[in-house]
Every structure is written in C-alpha cells, then in structure tokens.
C-alpha cells in the first residue's frame, strides 16, 4: 500500500510529471534569458526575480485566452493533439534517471522506447498541421515530416553509439546500464564526442529551433503547424514543448555526460544526483541556445541536403567507430 503510494508520488510529483513541468518552464526561462544575453538584450524581467516566472505567467495567461478552432478543422483530432503532445512528453521524461541510475520506468530496451517517442512527436506535429485544415499549418506539417527524414537516422545512430559499450559488454539496451558504465568515464570523453555533436544537431531539429525551425518558420509560414492553435490548446502545446526541451537536454546529459553520476568522474561530491543531473542538462541546454543564437534558419531542401550529405554518413561512421574501437582496445 505504502509502496504503491510512493510509486504514485514518484510518477506524479517527483521525479515525474510535476518536477519535469517545473523543470521545463525553468529551462524555457534559461533559454530565453541566455538567448537574450547573447543578443545584448535583458530578456524576461518582470514576473518574479529576474523574470523567473515569465514562462509560467505566459502559461497562465494563455490558459485564460479565448480558444478558437478553425471552422474547417477536424475538431476531435485538432483538440486532442495538445493533450497527446503533453502526455507523450510527460511519458518520455519518466525514463530519465533523475535520482539514482534509473528513471521511474526502467526496463530492458527502454532506449528503443525513448527513440520511438521522439518520432511520435513528429507524427503529432504532422497530425496537428493537417487537422488544422489551413494552408500555413499544412506547409509546416509537410516540412516537419521532411525534416524528420533528415535527422532521424543521425539521432538514432548517435543514441545507439552511446549504447555501443553496454550492448557489447552486457548485451543491454537499458538507460540504467548506460549510466552505470559511465560511472568512471563519461562517454563524451572519447569517440562519443562526435556522437554528442550529432545528437545536439539532431535535438535542435527535433525541437524545431534555429537553424532547424523550418516547420514553424515565423517569417515564412506564420507559426507553421502551430498557427491555428490558441488559448488552452496552445498553452498545453507550449508546455509539452518545454518538457520536450528538458527531456532532450536530460537525454543528452544521460547518454553522454554520465547523467546523475558525480560531476567529475571518481569524485564523490556532496551534491545529490538530482542536482547533478539538472546541472548537466543545463550545460546541454546552453549549448543548444548558443547554436540557436549563432545561425540563421536553413531552407528545408538545404536542411535535408545537409543531413543526407554530411550528418547521416558521419553518424554512421561514429556508430561504426563506437562499435569497433572498444573491441580493438580489448584485443
């Protein structure tokens, strides 16, 4: 009974839904504030200390706004997408090892589930665009699927590259074992540096941020697949996207930076694993923000071109390296 209650609390409060909802909003704030600093602006300032509550204030405000569904839209689908998006991102974060080496959900092969979830996000984007029955969302949806063709293989390859060691030594595809193998040596401090770079680019594309914000390019197609969403639905989608941001940063930290392992390999710090995990995720987030600030948006054909000419071959190369090199060392 008590165990059930604890499990429920683990899912709903910590380290599950509520924790990640707050973390997602916090990450949005860091992203905006740091982006603003890079651009010589002040960024969010008024809601809370240093504008810390601005994302939350935006969320509350959007919840109170009028909610419009376009006349021609596929109403049930259109209205359910925000709920699905939020549910999906909240489901995804349960796999992250926030405290201890394993997440709330952990089983053999959960890495595959995580990669599948990443693809599901794009399917939701696609459905959102098409159920809107409007031109800009239609173009945006089309672009998001085209973009998926570009970055999905590199993303999966980089994730598998991070798991190469555990696959070979333990035959395991579990996030927990990936984290445990990094207790002495983070995987980024080796050939995985390349995998990490590929993961960052792919994550940027998955999150639809500059230079890959093509599906929601503001100056081209208004807000892309999000154009017709308003009010509560938009608030939920934005929250889902924030959580997705936190999820991908967390995934990067887990796979390449040792997740909740102590800050320096071998150094047992006083910090709890949760704080270490969050700090590492923030490092990933800051890198993503720098990428966002330093580039302009690519065109969809350039993006797919770039992905297939460079990203896919390099990611396959790094996967091969990740598989071969440890073996060579062992021999």
């Amino acid at each position, binding site marked *: 009974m008590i165990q059930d209650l604890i499990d429920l609390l683990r899912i709903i409060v910590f380290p599950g839904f509520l924790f990640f909802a707050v973390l997602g909003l916090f990450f949005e704030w860091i992203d905006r504030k740091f982006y603003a600093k*890079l*651009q*010589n*602006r002040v960024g969010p300032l008024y809601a809370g200390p240093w504008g810390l509550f601005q994302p939350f204030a935006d969320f509350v405000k959007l919840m109170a706004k009028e909610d419009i569904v376009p006349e021609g839209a596929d109403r049930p689908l259109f209205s359910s997408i925000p709920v699905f998006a939020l549910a999906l991102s909240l489901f995804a974060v349960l796999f992250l090892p926030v405290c201890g080496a394993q997440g709330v959900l952990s089983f053999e092969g959960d890495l595959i589930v995580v990669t599948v979830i990443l693809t599901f996000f794009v399917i939701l984007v696609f459905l959102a665009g098409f159920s809107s029955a409007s*031109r*800009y969302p239609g*173009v945006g949806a*089309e*672009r998001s699927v085209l973009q998926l063709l570009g970055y999905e293989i590199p993303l999966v390859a980089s994730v598998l590259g991070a798991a190469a060691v555990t696959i070979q030594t333990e035959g395991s595809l579990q996030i927990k074992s990936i984290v445990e193998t990094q207790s002495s040596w983070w995987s980024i401090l080796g050939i995985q540096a390349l995998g990490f770079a590929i993961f960052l680019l792919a994550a940027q594309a998955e999150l639809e941020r*500059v*230079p890959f*914000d*093509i599906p929601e*390019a*503001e*100056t*081209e*197609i*208004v807000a892309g697949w999000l154009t017709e969403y308003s009010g509560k639905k938009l608030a939920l989608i934005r929250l889902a996207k924030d959580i997705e941001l936190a999820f991908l940063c967390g995934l990067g930290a887990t796979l390449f930076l040792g997740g909740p392992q102590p800050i320096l390999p071998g150094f047992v710090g006083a910090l709890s694993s949760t704080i270490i995990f969050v700090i590492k995720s923030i490092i990933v987030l800051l890198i993503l923000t720098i990428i966002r*600030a*330093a*580039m*302009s*948006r*690519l*065109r*969809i*054909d*350039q993006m797919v071109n770039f992905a297939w000419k460079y990203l896919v071959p390099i990611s396959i190369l790094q996967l091969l390296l990740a598989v071969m090199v440890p073996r060579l060392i062992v021999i």
Partner: protein
Amino acid sequence: MSVVDIPIGPQHPAIKEPLNITCYVDGEHVVGAKLRIGYNHRGIEKAGEYQTYIQNLYIAERICGICGIVHAFCLTQATEDIIGKEIPKRADYIRTIGLELNRIHSHLLWLGVAAHEIGFDTLFMYVWRDREMVMDVIEDFTGNRVTYALMTIGGVRRDIPQEKAERILKVMDLLDEKVRKYKKMCLDERTIRMRCDGVGILRKEDAIALCAVGPTARASGVPFDVRADDPHAAYDEIPFRVVTYDTCDVTARLLVRIDETLESISIVREAIKRMPSGPVRIRVPRVVPTGEGVGRTEAPRGEVIHYVRANGTERPFRWKVRAPTLANLLSIPVMLTSRGDYVVNIADVPITFASIDPCLSCTDRAIRFIDVSSGKSWVWTFSQIKRMYWRD
C-alpha cells in the same frame, strides 16, 4: 501535386505593412506570384492641396517614417525649382548630411529586418542596437528621432554648430567599425550565404526593363544613382562611389546596402569637413509663382520624385509623389517565379520580398477601385465619394 495558392499578407509576420502577395505553390516551389497593393491609401497628395507649402513639408515628412528627410527635401527642391532662388551653400551641406544620416539609419534598419526574415535574430538585435547611435545623432541636431522637421523652403531650420559636428564625427567612426564588422559577418557566416546566394535573381536586362531603382537596380549591375547622375544639394562637390554588384541576387542587395552605408559615412565626414560658413536659410515669399517644379533625390530605397504644380497661390495646385518602392514592386513577380534552373522556394519569398526594402506607406496611392469578383474597375471622383459617404 496540384498548384496551391498561398496568400502572404495583407497581414503576415513577414510583412510589416499591408500588401498581398499570392504565391502559386507546387510543393515547396513557387511557380508564380501576384501582387496587390492599395491597402494603405492615405490621401496625402489630396491633403497637400489644402495646405500651404510650408505645412506640406510636415505632411511630406510623414509619407515615410524611415526616410522622412528625403521626402521633405524633395518637396523643398520642387518648390524651390518653381521659385527659382539659390539657397545658401551651407544649407546644401546640412541637407546632404541629413540625407546621408537618413540613409545610414535606413540601411541598418533594413539589414536588421533582412536578418530577421532569414531567422537570424541575433544579427537583427545587434544591428538595431547600433542603429540607435545614428538615431541619437539625428535627434541631436534636428531635435527629433523620426520626423525631423529639418527642411524648409529656402534652406534648413537648424544649423550644425561645431560641437555637434564633432559628435557626429565621433559616432561615424564608431559606426564605420561596426558596419565593417557586419559586412565581414554577412560574408563569412555560412547560413546567411546559404539563404541569400542565388535567391531572388533579377537579371540586368529585367532590372532595366522593369524600371528598378536604387539598391535593387545597383545590385543587378545597373549603375543608376540620382546623386551621381543628377547632382543636387552638395553631391556635386563631394566625391563618392556608386556601389554596384553584378550577382543580381539577395546577397548583392545586402552588400550594396552595407557598402552604401560605408559610403554614406564617408560622405558625412567629407561634408562636415568641407562645410562652408554662412547663413543656413533665406527668406522666400509664402506665395509661389505659377509654374511646375520637380524634385528628385536618391532615397535609401531608390529614386524619389516629387512634382509640384503651382498656380500663383500659397497652396499647390497639384502635388505628385513617386516613391521608389512603387518602381521596385514590379520586379517582385519576376524574382518570385521559378523558371528553368532558377527555383524559388516558399522559404525564399520573405527575404526576396524584403530585399527591395519595401516601404508601402510611401507607395500606396491607389485611386482605382476594383471589384475582385467581376474584374470591373472604376474611378470615383471626390464629389461622388462625398455624396455617398459624407454626412453633414
């Protein structure tokens, strides 16, 4: 896949002013485009007929919020053309400085907008931050940031004393350094080049045939610049280079504008150095003799023409303004149509459109009414409109 029409505007984040571009799209490729302007008619020319010449200067300045000095200058030029009096040399130099500062501010503004159109917000923020310097300098000597009220018939209203001239020079040095940095950034940053190279091609013969003006024409290799071709103010005494590029694409327009900004900075420096002393205005009669006058100058966007017909009263009989955007708009459908190897993507539409630096508030002076469903068009006279819509 069949051809879909995607309307861009009259309300769209990429377009800051009301205009409609209907793009005919096949997949991601634009196969044709149609323009509609006329959402923003303000009746400025008509209003001008009810005001005196001096009052008109302040209306003229409000034709465009960005190149206000240019329109006021053109109107004074046209009026002085009729009056036929020489204005003091020092006033010519101050006018030149005003026009060039205006150009610097306008080109920097455009650079920011262009960066925003291709999704490079960081460059946008930096450029607009530095644009504030030139805004401050303009405010310093005219008294206003936007509508300057600098020009008057027979000269200028404000002199540039020594200490203000020094302040201007100091800012010019700072800006020079910054603009060179941005030029390097635009040339080196790969993603900018990927978005601008080979986009929005306007071949030289098209540019000439479609009467393109200003940086749009000069980026297509047409060395047309009113400042050099028909010198006015102090442009005949100050050496400067007419910047042209011949790649005919958005990059060329980007570089033409950046290089022109550098040219403008050197013109301002030179003008301050050579500025003669003396009065800055002469008194002219309120009543302008019968006659016709034309004022033309190179606005940041291209050639502006003001035509004034006077009938011997203190109000103009007719005042006609041709803003550069009207001349450049014709090139837009050509730039936006894929033909042969030249492919236009939807993503290229905003930056291509922005590359002519459109200013519709200058441009819109629609006088024909069109019934879209039947294609019938007609003109309403003032008395007809009055009969239909005015209630007294």
